């Protein structure tokens, strides 16, 4: 009898933690969703479910029928292209560096790891000011390459570090066997290294892609033309006026938030093992 009471008490205690945690997590997200499916002016009624749920806001967004949304599709496309470019370039830069350091044991590899780690720890907002000035010297301001290259700079140190940790775990015998068979460095890279590294490559590729898609600060500093900016910057424009159409902002925000969330959940397995193991080595 007392044992079962103890069990009930234990379950109750778990629920007492779980329910507040769930509310804390979901309230801002649900509020976003509620606004996106509410008619203008009825969203603040305090109801938990709108009287007349509607998809009209999404229709306005998709048809670009508002001053703030004139370039919605183009900005969505910009976000996508920039994220893909950052993902691809970061993967290239980080994989080659990790391979050279970990498998080819290039001289000075340790130093390269240290400078990568150092860059990783510079707070991104601190680097933003000099980065902005530098891009203007390079003549890249208002050019999407400036954002792509800045994001590659920010994403690659961590990717190199994660990939190097993973490469160090591959058995040396594989390299030796490949060398015995007469493989050159590039064949080793292509035929042995890359196939074995796929899970880590997926993790860091996804990481850099999401980092670029989600970035706001660098995007709004480096790009300013309405036709160049990413969706993140376009969302920030809604803040310019007090009477902004909030329901449209929320609908656009929801559309903007869905792809990264979907990608995250699709690759969760890789992300969690790759990134948590990498983020803090205990």
């Amino acid at each position, binding site marked *: 009898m007392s044992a079962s009471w103890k069990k009930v008490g234990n379950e109750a205690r*778990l629920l007492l*933690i*779980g329910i507040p*945690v*769930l509310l*804390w*997590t*979901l309230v801002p*997200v649900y*509020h*976003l969703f509620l606004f996106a499916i509410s008619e203008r002016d009825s969203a*603040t*009624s305090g109801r938990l479910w709108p009287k007349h749920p509607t998809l009209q806001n999404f229709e306005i967004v998709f048809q670009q029928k508002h001053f703030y949304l004139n370039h919605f599709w183009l900005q969505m496309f910009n976000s996508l292209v920039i994220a893909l470019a950052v993902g691809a370039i970061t993967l290239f830069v*980080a994989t080659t*560096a990790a391979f*050279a350091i970990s498998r*080819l044991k*290039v*001289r000075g*590899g340790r130093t*390269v*790891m240290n400078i990568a*780690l*150092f860059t990783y*720890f510079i*707070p991104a*907002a*601190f*680097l*933003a*000011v*000099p*980065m902005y*000035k530098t891009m203007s*010297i390079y003549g890249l301001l208002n050019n999407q390459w400036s954002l792509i290259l800045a994001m590659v*700079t920010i994403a*690659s140190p961590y990717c*190199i570090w994660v990939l190097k940790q993973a490469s160090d775990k591959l058995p040396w015998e594989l390299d030796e066997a490949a060398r015995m068979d007469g493989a*050159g*460095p*590039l064949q080793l*890279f292509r035929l042995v290294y890359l196939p074995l590294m796929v899970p880590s490559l997926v993790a860091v590729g996804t990481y850099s892609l999401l980092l670029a898609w*989600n970035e*706001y*600060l660098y995007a709004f500093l480096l790009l300013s033309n309405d036709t160049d900016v990413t969706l*993140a910057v376009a969302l*920030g424009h*809604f*803040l310019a006026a007090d009477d902004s159409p909030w329901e449209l902002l929320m609908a656009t*925000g929801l559309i*903007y*938030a869905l792809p*990264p*969330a979907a990608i995250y*959940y699709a690759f969760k397995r890789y992300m969690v093992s790759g990134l948590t*193991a990498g*983020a*803090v*080595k*205990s």
Partner: protein
Amino acid sequence: MTTTVLGAAAPKPLSPWTFWGRALVLPYLLVFAVFVVFPVGYGLWLARHPASYVKLFDDPIFFRTAINTLVFIVVAINLKMMVALALSGFFVVKRWWISVVAALFILPWAVPSIPTILSVRFMLNPEWGVINSTYFRLTGLDGPNWLNDPLLGLSFSMLMHVWKSLPFWTLILVAGRLAIPAEQYEAASVDGATRWQKFRFITWPAMKSLYLTSTILSMIWTLGDFNSVYLLTGGGPADLTHVLATLGIRYLRLDQVDLAMASIVVALPLVLPLVFFMMRRLGK
């Protein structure tokens, strides 16, 4: 004779392994030189005049910002890490519904910050926000102007930061807890240890180092958290809720680059020791 001299003078041909080792590390070194070394060097050069620092210290906003940043780092990060440590104990319990909660709990970290921060910003809107409209319906009184109060504004920015990054750190600490052998807890249960004793003598000693590393890493990164403050309060009211991350950008937009760089340089004595500490921990 001549051949040996020539042979010694000519550069030794690189083995393909050495050649490709250098060639493959080159792309990153280029990125580093062009987009880290040059900007940082140029930034430090811009911040070379002592007059910039005099101007910076004369700016009352800077003083307020420094305090805000310290409060943010000391209060918000420690609060967040303690909650993450406690919650990691909740998430390792095996129940089907806890796995569901865990999957949803990641959401703040998985979605971009802008939509969710703006959602909270509108919740707190004094006239139309859901909080004050509900308060008005219930009491007939006007609710407070949440983000127009510096203390409340900064507190909400800190809560926003916690909301966004708590899942990530909880996940890290869950990984830490899962690495502790279950036998230790079983043995302790046999000996009749209480919940607190198990934490005090098994969990904490095993997690201490991970917890410290995570806290310091989170502090360094939080210095770069621009979104939680800028998108919620915009640094207002009257520039009283800025942190270093937003102040530098504010100076930049006012075309006072020397002040922007100076505000970053004065933070370096605080940041660099933490960075080197982290490099020694993770660089091994």
